[in-house]
């Protein structure tokens, strides 16, 4: 890739980071944290974006960022103390800046009105127009030089330059030799050094300046070019550039210099110089020590995601091959050699460790995801005239990168729902005795090998009568169904359900909770809901830590091998025909202790064989689906429990109902991993209660 294009990519990546830091800092400031580091970080974020934008000539971005930066500079310097409204403006500006960055990146600027309006609000805030981009206003002392425009230069100009550096010139590490070398590039150059001021060694101060030069330059360049060479040293020297004929005779001393005055100055300053020189000479231990106390920064390295994925795939191969090796060795010898067995176990352990380490590379904190939600909350709250605050917990919780990306849409939808439907208006809340400001909480944590994410609100909770009514009206449940509270709540996840009486712009785009649930399940996750009327609702997502491996039970149905994810399994049930009850058609239930659960003939369900009219043999596996309901799966045999590498079926084929993914077994063959929730869902074309508690035996 062309290097500039690569740096442009880097710039936009960096913009994302800066925008996140900006939002974070502004939110902290809004919470009351006004320490200088926070404010500085906020300023730097906008300043950085502006700087890069300038390099890529993104005019609109530069000018908006400039206005924003100016306002932040005033906050930084203390001349502006932002109140609540001002903070809201800053946050809106941050959102607008984010949009502008995206638009600049995609080259689609669109409507500039929102930016202009924010700029005007800034101008009003900081009083008058923002600082114009100044020309260099000649801040530095400009000594005697020609002040008029040079006449069209003759073929060759002859310049005489007198230079007497002051000690400051050297203190700033400027070096006349470098300047002279630059002058030689302009033409024919000669220098005459005047050493008259040089004292004897006993009074010689190394930091002082005793030399002066008369320089002669014949050049076709204009005087401005010659003057430019001395840009950095102006003010730290006596400088005169004259355009005249070269001086052929060597004059003793340039007339401008007053030697006696200089000598006097030197003698006066000598003791002071000596003192500072002595003080500066020995190395200062404090200066050495200070940098060592810097906060420990974890060294990081940026790696192409492709490389990480390739590595993960290779490790996946390694795991499969290790399993294949183990299987072949153990099957080939009738006598189990203990050393071989223990070596194989060690190999398996090492392989698993490598896999976990490699998987961890892709793990990222959920923080950026939660930050995105922060903006969604603001927008929806604005649009619905509600007062909402987002609280987050566990932002540092790490999740596989793909999970973070794929969670964005479902989370967005849930957050929008929470603000739009869950939370009441400020007036309603006050009437209910609640604080006018509603709270939406996003929490993430690791629990028993999975990532648990909770989306909760302190709003009105699920309106169960209304939900049930809607479900009946949509034909999703029979009119006389008796449902528990939790079962009503779960009606939200059924396809074709919507509680919005009017399609609101916010969440009523035809995307229902069923799509959210499918998205979560596609990640190998589960979602459940709990709610208390008047108090609020909580959605709980349970997600796998990694997308690449799965612990499962390997089963067979008619010689075909399937894998059932361990997380869905409650227990295996010894199959006794007496436990099975035929409900008519091809419906069966299994009695497990005191409860009847639906029994699903996996073979029939997946089209492996025809539905049986009685189920005599096999093994039943009791499973629990995402919403907590239980069913049993009937298979022929259980082989063993294994950790398998998940291979996508969708990469080259497509999604199959009832199948979560594929895996490659020890013998190299592909096996299907069952999607337990979908299997159960498929079975229930008509609504049927998930569990029927038996009356206690009398």
């Amino acid at each position: 890739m062309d290097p500039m294009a690569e740096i442009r990519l880097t710039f936009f990546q960096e913009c994302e980071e800066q925008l996140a830091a900006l939002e974070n800092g502004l939110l902290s400031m809004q919470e009351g944290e006004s320490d200088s580091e926070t404010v500085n970080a906020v300023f730097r974020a906008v300043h950085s974006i502006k700087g890069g934008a300038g390099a890529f000539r993104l005019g609109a971005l530069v000018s908006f960022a400039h206005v924003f930066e100016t306002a932040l500079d005033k906050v930084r310097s203390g001349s502006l103390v932002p109140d609540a409204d001002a903070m809201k403006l800053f946050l809106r500006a941050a959102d607008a800046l984010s949009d502008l960055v995206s638009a600049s990146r995609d080259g689609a600027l669109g409507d500039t009105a929102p930016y202009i309006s924010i700029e005007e609000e800034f101008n009003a805030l900081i009083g008058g127009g923002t600082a114009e981009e100044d020309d260099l206003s000649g801040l530095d002392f400009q000594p005697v030089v020609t002040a008029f425009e040079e006449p069209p230069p003759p073929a060759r100009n002859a310049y005489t330059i007198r230079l007497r550096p002051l000690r400051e010139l050297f203190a700033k590490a400027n070096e006349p030799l470098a300047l002279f070398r630059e002058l030689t590039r302009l033409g024919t150059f000669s220098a005459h050094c005047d050493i008259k001021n040089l004292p004897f060694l006993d009074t010689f101060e190394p930091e002082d300046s005793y030399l002066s030069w008369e320089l002669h330059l014949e050049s076709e360049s204009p005087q401005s070019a010659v003057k430019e060479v001395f840009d950095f040293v102006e003010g730290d020297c006596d400088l005169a550039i004259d355009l005249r004929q070269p001086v052929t005779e060597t004059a003793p001393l340039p007339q401008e210099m007053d030697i006696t005055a200089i000598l006097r100055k030197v003698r006066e300053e000598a003791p002071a110089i000596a003192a500072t020189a002595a003080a500066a000479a020995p190395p200062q231990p404090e200066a050495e020590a200070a940098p060592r106390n810097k906060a420990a920064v974890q060294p990081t390295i940026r790696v192409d995601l492709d490389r990480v994925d390739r590595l993960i795939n290779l490790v996946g191969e390694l795991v499969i091959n290790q399993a294949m090796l183990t299987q072949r060795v153990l099957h080939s010898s009738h006598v189990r050699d203990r050393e071989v067995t223990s070596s194989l176990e060690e190999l398996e352990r090492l392989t698993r460790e490598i896999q976990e380490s490699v998987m961890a590379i892709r793990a990222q904190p959920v923080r950026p995801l939660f930050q995105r939600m922060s903006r969604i909350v603001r927008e929806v709250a604005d649009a619905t005239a509600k007062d909402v605050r987002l609280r987050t917990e566990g932002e540092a919780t790490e999740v596989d990168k793909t999970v973070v990306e794929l969670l964005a849409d479902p989370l967005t939808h849930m957050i929008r729902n929470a603000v739009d439907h869950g939370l009441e208006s400020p007036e309603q809340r006050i009437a209910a005795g609640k604080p006018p400001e509603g709270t939406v909480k996003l929490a993430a944590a690791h629990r028993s090998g999975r990532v648990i994410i909770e989306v909760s609100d302190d709003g009105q909770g699920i309106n169960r009568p209304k939900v049930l009514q809607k479900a009946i009206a949509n034909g999703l449940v029979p009119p006389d169904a008796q449902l528990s509270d939790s079962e009503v709540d779960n009606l939200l996840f059924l396809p074709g359900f919507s509680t919005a009486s009017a399609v609101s712009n916010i969440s009523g785009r035809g995307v229902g909770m069923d799509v959210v649930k499918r998205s979560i399940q596609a990640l190998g996750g589960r979602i459940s809901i709990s709610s208390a009327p008047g108090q609020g609702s909580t959605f709980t997502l349970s997600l796998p830590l990694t997308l690449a491996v799965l612990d499962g039970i390997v089963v067979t149905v008619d010689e075909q091998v399937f894998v059932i994810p361990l997380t869905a399994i409650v227990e295996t049930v010894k199959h006794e025909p007496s436990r099975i009850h035929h409900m008519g058609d091809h419906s069966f239930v299994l009695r497990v202790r005191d409860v009847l659960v639906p029994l699903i003939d996996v073979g029939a369900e997946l089209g492996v064989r025809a539905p049986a009219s009685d189920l005599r043999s096999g093994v039943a596996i009791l499973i629990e689906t995402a919403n907590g309901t239980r069913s049993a799966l009937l298979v022929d045999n259980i082989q063993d429990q294994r950790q398998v590498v998940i291979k996508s079926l969708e990469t080259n084929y497509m999604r199959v109902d009832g199948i979560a993914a594929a895996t490659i077994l020890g013998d190299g063959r592909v096996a299907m991993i069952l999607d337990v929730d979908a299997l159960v869902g498929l079975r229930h074309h008509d609504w049927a209660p998930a569990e029927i508690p038996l009356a206690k035996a009398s």
Partner: protein
Amino acid sequence: MTVKILTVDDSRTMRDMLRMALLDAGFNVVQAEDGLHGLDVLRNEQPQVVITDINMPRMDGFGFIEAVRQDAQYRAIPILVLTTESDDDKKLRARRAGATGWIVKPFDPAKLIAAIRRVAA
């Protein structure tokens, strides 16, 4: 011997752009992300010229220049600051802190190289 230049800037974009321009011009480049880091790299790499931004976390450009000018071993190293055009106050402050010269952002690679030549003895 190839001249080694240390660039100190917290912006990855800016570091990449400087690096590209400097490498193209035949310089060796080492980089740091802020003033404190810059002091570290300075001591380890001993460049001939330093280019630094002003606004950086942990230790900004002013702090960095002052620290370098107080160091007995490195006080004579040329330091160029990156400044935006309107930042006259900053430029003055940087010069007072001991900056050798300046480069205006967004920078023109030719001017960048010219500035370096003017200070690298």
